């Protein structure tokens, strides 16, 4: 966004007005929440009543309060914070919030923009003022050495608060529908972006790096507690299982794309391989293999078969690189789908039942624990999908463990070296071809395991689930979230799976919106939502301030780690 800022002269002369602008803008945004937004009382859970804020109106009030707080912070700026940057992000988010709701939620849904009342225009003015405040704030150099020094127990409190907030936000978001959901998401992106953008993000990253274990533990605790917030309802849990399967596969892809730098456009085939193995060896009446080993063995076989396919596809294709590799893998993805389509007994061995697929896959049963039935644990009802969710949580924990341990090892360094400069890596004794194959095999194996579980969650497997679009979505999750990171891919996968579920009204425009999102991302944040420091630098090489800041943060983290 660097090109959208004002010249230094303007900032020098008008910089002193920034806190005032921010506070007035914030107050207007806050006020708009109390006004009427629409003459029609049917949209956004009735936002037509004055002085009775609900839903989206409350969200915009949160944005207003944030702007006011940032304005106050501008007056007395801590050396490690840049409220100006936060205000810019918040300003853009507020404007986007207002325009999207005004045009689509009210204009499009009620059929006429005339239904628009005074609330949103007031918020728009406020948003513009907040943005202006951010723009006239003089650019500052952050001094990360002035980060507040907390005792280690307080740092853990920070992490716990962060995680509790996350759990609350996710549970709340899932309870919302359509436009209110979008409004909440925009508010979250705006406020979180603004708060983190002031420099708190870097600080939280530092605190997180200092307390890796507690952070991981807290994150999994939150994920574990999530089904207990759902009152036995399976609606959201079903989405959650799909998100985890998708995320586990995307993490496998992340090894191939994010670490080794190999663009694979046919990755969904490996998930499919696992799913077909799971289905063919299940107790389903349509299963084509007579041998029914225990599920753990099936998982192992699924991952081995997928890894073998990875090797078979990899050994010829890895001799090409870059665009050619992308095209060849795309071809292999299609070959997989067509092969599954045709192995129906007429054109080849009867393995997959062709286009009909393998339906009627029964639920898993571990030592008498039936995944298909509701279980009551400590007074909380856990339905079918909640059961699978807990199993998948173990899966993704395993996948994250494999990913991060490989990343931080001799092999991970080899992969990154190949991504950086293949010829130099080879000249330094890195077995380039072998490592590329290994990336393919490990990634495929992880996707294969996810596939075997997916077969049971979905109860059926058919070729049309493994089309090219799914591969594209997987890649998009990796790119959108942040290549090479774990958290980024989890965020990316959640967004890509959640949005279509929550936006049933605009499902026809799903791909259009998705394309727009990617274009906007590539323009403003090509390194992904949660970027690894390395990639951030790659895309903003000319940003000297960022380079210096990253350097300082990196040194501090290295020191903390050494302790």
């Amino acid at each position: 966004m660097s090109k959208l800022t004002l010249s230094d002269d303007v900032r020098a002369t008008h910089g002193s007005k920034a806190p005032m602008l921010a506070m007035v803008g914030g107050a207007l945004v806050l006020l708009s929440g109390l006004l009427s937004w629409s003459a029609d009382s049917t949209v956004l859970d009735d936002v037509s009543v004055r002085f009775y804020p609900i839903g989206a109106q409350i969200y915009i009030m949160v944005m207003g309060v944030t702007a006011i707080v940032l304005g106050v912070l501008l007056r007395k700026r801590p050396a490690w914070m840049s409220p100006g940057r936060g205000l810019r992000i918040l300003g853009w988010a507020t404007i986007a919030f207002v325009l999207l709701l005004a045009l689509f939620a009210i204009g499009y849904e009620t059929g006429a923009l005339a239904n628009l009342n005074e609330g949103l225009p007031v918020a728009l003015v406020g948003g513009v003022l907040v943005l202006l405040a951010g723009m006239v704030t003089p650019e500052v150099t952050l001094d990360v050495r002035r980060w507040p020094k907390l005792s280690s127990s307080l740092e853990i409190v920070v992490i716990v608060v962060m995680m509790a907030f996350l759990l609350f936000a996710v549970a709340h978001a899932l309870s919302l529908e359509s436009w209110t959901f979008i409004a909440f998401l925009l508010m979250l992106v705006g406020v979180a972006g603004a708060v983190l953008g002031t420099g708190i993000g870097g600080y939280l990253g530092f605190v997180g790096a200092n307390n890796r274990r507690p952070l991981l533990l807290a994150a999994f605790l939150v994920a574990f507690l999530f089904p207990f917030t759902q009152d036995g309802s399976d609606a959201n849990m079903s989405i959650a299982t799909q998100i985890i399967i998708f995320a586990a596969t995307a993490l496998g892809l992340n090894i191939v794309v994010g670490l080794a730098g190999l663009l694979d456009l046919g990755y969904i085939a490996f998930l499919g391989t696992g799913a077909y193995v799971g289905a063919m060896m299940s107790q389903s009446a349509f299963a084509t293999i007579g041998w029914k080993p225990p599920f753990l063995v099936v998982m192992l076989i699924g991952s081995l078969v997928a890894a073998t396919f990875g090797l078979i596809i990899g050994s010829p294709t890895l001799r090409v690189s870059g665009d050619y590799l992308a095209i060849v893998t795309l071809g292999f993805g299609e070959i997989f789908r067509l092969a599954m389509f045709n192995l129906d007994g007429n054109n080849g061995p009867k393995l997959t039942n062709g286009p009909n697929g393998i339906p009627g896959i029964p639920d898993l049963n571990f030592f008498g624990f039936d995944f298909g039935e509701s279980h009551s644990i400590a007074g909380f009802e856990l339905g079918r999908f909640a059961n699978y969710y807990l199993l998948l949580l173990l899966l993704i924990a395993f996948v994250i463990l494999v990913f991060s341990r490989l990343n931080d090892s001799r092999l991970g360094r080899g992969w990154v070296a190949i991504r950086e400069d293949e010829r130099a890596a080879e000249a330094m004794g890195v077995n380039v071809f072998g490592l590329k194959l290994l990336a393919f095999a490990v990634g495929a194996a992880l996707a294969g395991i996810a596939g075997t579980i997916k077969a049971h969650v979905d109860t059926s497997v058919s070729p049309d689930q493994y089309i090219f679009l799914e591969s594209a979505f997987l890649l998009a999750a990796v790119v959108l979230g942040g290549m090479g990171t774990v958290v980024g891919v989890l965020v990316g996968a959640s967004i890509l799976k959640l949005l279509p579920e929550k936006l049933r009204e605009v499902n026809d425009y799903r791909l259009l919106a998705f394309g727009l999102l990617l274009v906007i991302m590539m323009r403003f944040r090509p390194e992904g939502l949660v970027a690894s420091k390395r990639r951030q630098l790659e895309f903003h090489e000319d940003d000297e301030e960022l380079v210096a800041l990253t350097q300082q943060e990196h040194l501090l983290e290295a020191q903390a780690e050494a302790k």
Partner: protein
Amino acid sequence: MSTLEATNVGHQVGHKVVLEASNVTMRFGGLTAVNDVSMQVHDGEIVGLIGPNGAGKTTFFNCLTGMYIPTEGTVKLSGEVLPPKPLKVVRAGMARTFQNIRLFGNMTALENVMVGRYCRTSSMALTSVLRGPKFKREEAATRERAQELLDYVGLGKSAELLARNMPYGDQRRLEIARALATDPQLLLLDEPTAGMNPKETEECMHLIFKIRDSGLAVVVIEHDMRFIFQLCDRVLCLVRGALLIEGTPGEVQSDPRVIEAYIGGSDDDDDEEGTK
């Protein structure tokens, strides 16, 4: 600090032949880039390779390191014929740096050197995931050795800097540290002082002497004549792919044909461009 000449005086070259290239010829179609060049390098010896642009120096280098398979001739390292694969050449004990620095820019200095340890370590996927005591020991040893090497080349304090953010001279030294991490017997330096200022060049020379004194054989391609004549025990001059003269710096320096090759009959033979 002693003068540079003084550092090389009284130095004894070892007797073990580390590198022996015999009658190496490299043809690209009808073009003969390297024509029947032979060369011996002993342990503790610094050999310089000079020649005007396009003389085939880098092509010869690439033949040594296994990037090209020579059309004729053999390359032996400590008596063993080298397999023509960069990977195996490194394992056999020959490491190189690049003319245009090729570091892993988005990795830290320490990580760059740790990559150099790749071929001397062995942990694979399963051990990396399980993290047994052997993996931890190897990882710690790798880290320690990498830090040692950084200290050795004078970059000990820059371990956590990203390679791309380092000053130019430091990047050159980091490349040398990365090459040393592969435990080579022979170090090939392709224009190590290109783009350096006089002070950095001098530091680089001291570093090369230090490496030589630890018993390694060093081969240097360089355009800076002052640097090469001060540094090397022996100098080979290539012209149009063939060996023009081989001798001590004094002999090569005073040979009229060398001066002629550089100043007089320079022709536009740019086969070297294709190899970069």
